[in-house]
């Protein structure tokens, strides 16, 4: 049973990856955008944002990584909405295949897409002066958290893709909420620079936790209060993992339930 489910998931993953191969535009544009962000923030805002004890570009890169994988996860909504609209989900559902395979296959191929984007971004980061300063293992741990987060975000996106009525709606509904989510965080500016009303929101934002975890693991964090205050600032790594598991615990069952319902309308 489990083997069949894994094999079905892999067949669907492969099918989605073939699409990326046939239509590389999507990857190209989803890669150009983060590179543009790195360059714009590094060179336009870089001088105006104070990050005590650390070069802004080093501070910035983990933030851009997290923002990018969050947006990258938005593709899950589009892919699922597209399959529903084109009737491919009906075909899948009339086959004796594992029920979750379409969703696991979709989130897996979107994760692979995200990994590819992060590789391109890392190279861009290194070029503008970003470094992992804390050794190999902590470097790997940082990427592991980043990809766990990317995967968790894909499942939120899956629920959106299964709830909307068309690809066009998925295109905006899948992304619009990510702007406040990623900007109301420590991704681009230290939370200490935010108005006091917004500060706790930004500090407890899962995006901030993941960004801070990466900064700590990679040695890209600014000194002292610029990291924020209180519990989220002190335990970013465990808090990030906790956020990701919480998101998965809620959104995986929710997606599967929606998938059944969306397809059986």
């Amino acid at each position: 049973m489990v083997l069949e489910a894994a094999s079905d998931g892999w067949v669907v993953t492969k099918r989605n990856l073939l699409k990326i191969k046939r239509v590389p535009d999507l990857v190209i544009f989803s890669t150009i955008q983060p590179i543009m962000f790195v360059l714009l923030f590094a060179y336009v805002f870089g001088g105006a944002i104070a990050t005590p004890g650390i070069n802004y570009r080093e501070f910035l890169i983990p933030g851009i990584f997290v923002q990018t994988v969050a947006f990258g996860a938005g593709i899950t909504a589009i892919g699922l909405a597209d399959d529903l609209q084109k009737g491919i989900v009906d075909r899948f559902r009339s086959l004796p295949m594992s029920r979750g395979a379409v969703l696991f296959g979709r989130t897996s191929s979107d994760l692979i897409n995200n990994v590819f984007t992060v590789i391109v971004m890392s190279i861009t980061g290194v070029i503008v002066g970003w470094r992992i300063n804390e050794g190999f293992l902590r470097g790997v741990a940082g990427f592991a958290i980043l990809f766990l987060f990317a995967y968790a975000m894909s499942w939120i996106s899956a629920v959106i893709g299964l709830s909307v009525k068309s690809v066009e709606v998925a295109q905006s509904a899948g992304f619009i909420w990510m702007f406040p989510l990623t900007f109301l965080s420590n991704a681009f500016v230290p939370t200490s620079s935010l108005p006091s009303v917004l500060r706790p929101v930004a500090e407890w934002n899962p995006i901030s936790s993941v960004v801070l975890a990466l900064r700590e693991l990679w040695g890209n964090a600014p000194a002292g209060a610029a990291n924020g205050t209180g519990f989220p600032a002190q335990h970013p790594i465990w808090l990030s993992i906790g956020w990701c598991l919480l998101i998965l615990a809620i959104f995986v069952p929710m997606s599967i339930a929606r998938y059944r319902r969306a397809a059986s309308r």
Partner: protein
Amino acid sequence: MADAIIAERLGKTYGSVNAVVDLDLVVPEGTVLGLLGPNGAGKTTTVRMLTTLITPTSGRCEVGGIDVCAHPDQVRRIIGVSGQYAAVDDYLTGYENLEMVGRLYHLGKRRARKRAFELLEQFELTDAADRPAKTYSGGMRRRLDLAGALVVHPPVIFLDEPTTGLDPRSRLGMWGVISDLVKAGSTLLLTTQYLEEADRLCDEIVVIDHGRAIAQGTATELKSQMGGEKLAVAVGDHEELATAADVLRSVGVDEPEVDDQAREVTVHIDRGTAALVEAVRKLDGADITPTNLEIRKPTLDDVFLTLTGQPAQEETETGGTA
């Protein structure tokens, strides 16, 4: 002979809309049942219930002797489904589409591959096997979709409007393919809007409208219920209408209908071309040269006019299904 498909008082309700109401169907093994009706009649909803895609609101159904609601997984192993919108992946090649379906039926790599090549051959897609389905014509996509439904030689096949939107040539090709399936002994349920298609492919036809079965029988039975064929004569001049009507009265089986505006007279006939020949002779004798002269076979519209007193009307339906 066992019954491959059974539906008993099957119903599906969306909010206050009754998509399908108390539908009874029986399809004996190895036969073809046509569900004939206009858009929005409930054809697709019925197919989706029988193929495990949606749950009926009421009633029950069986496919291959298995209760569909109780054991959907077992039903999925013995059915092939080809939907109204060809469910092929545009970005995969024809071969990749079929291989993927084979893998999802758990055929294993080698058998999935072999079966994909067989089907491509059978459906004349071998030359296009390595092209993305995006580049296929409408007819090719339909054939590929149908091939996908046949990967595991399913004993029961559902085809939802297999020829809607196809050009006449592709439609003929599709009919050929479907006839071959029937000869090979499969049980088929197909939905269509075309009486001609149902006539040609189906052993038994169920006419549905507003989710209800309104007539059932063989194509011949249905046609005779509708008064059969008509002979139509159009003339160039209004003065000739009355004479043409006299001629048709003498060859037809009922009182001719005269359409002043179209300058056309029609009458029901029961002798086919013999009536046509006689009419030609008589018209010639009366010195009338018709501008048009034809035998009209009953269409879906005639079925509906006869059965409901209203022409088949298109309806928009909730949930995007027809």
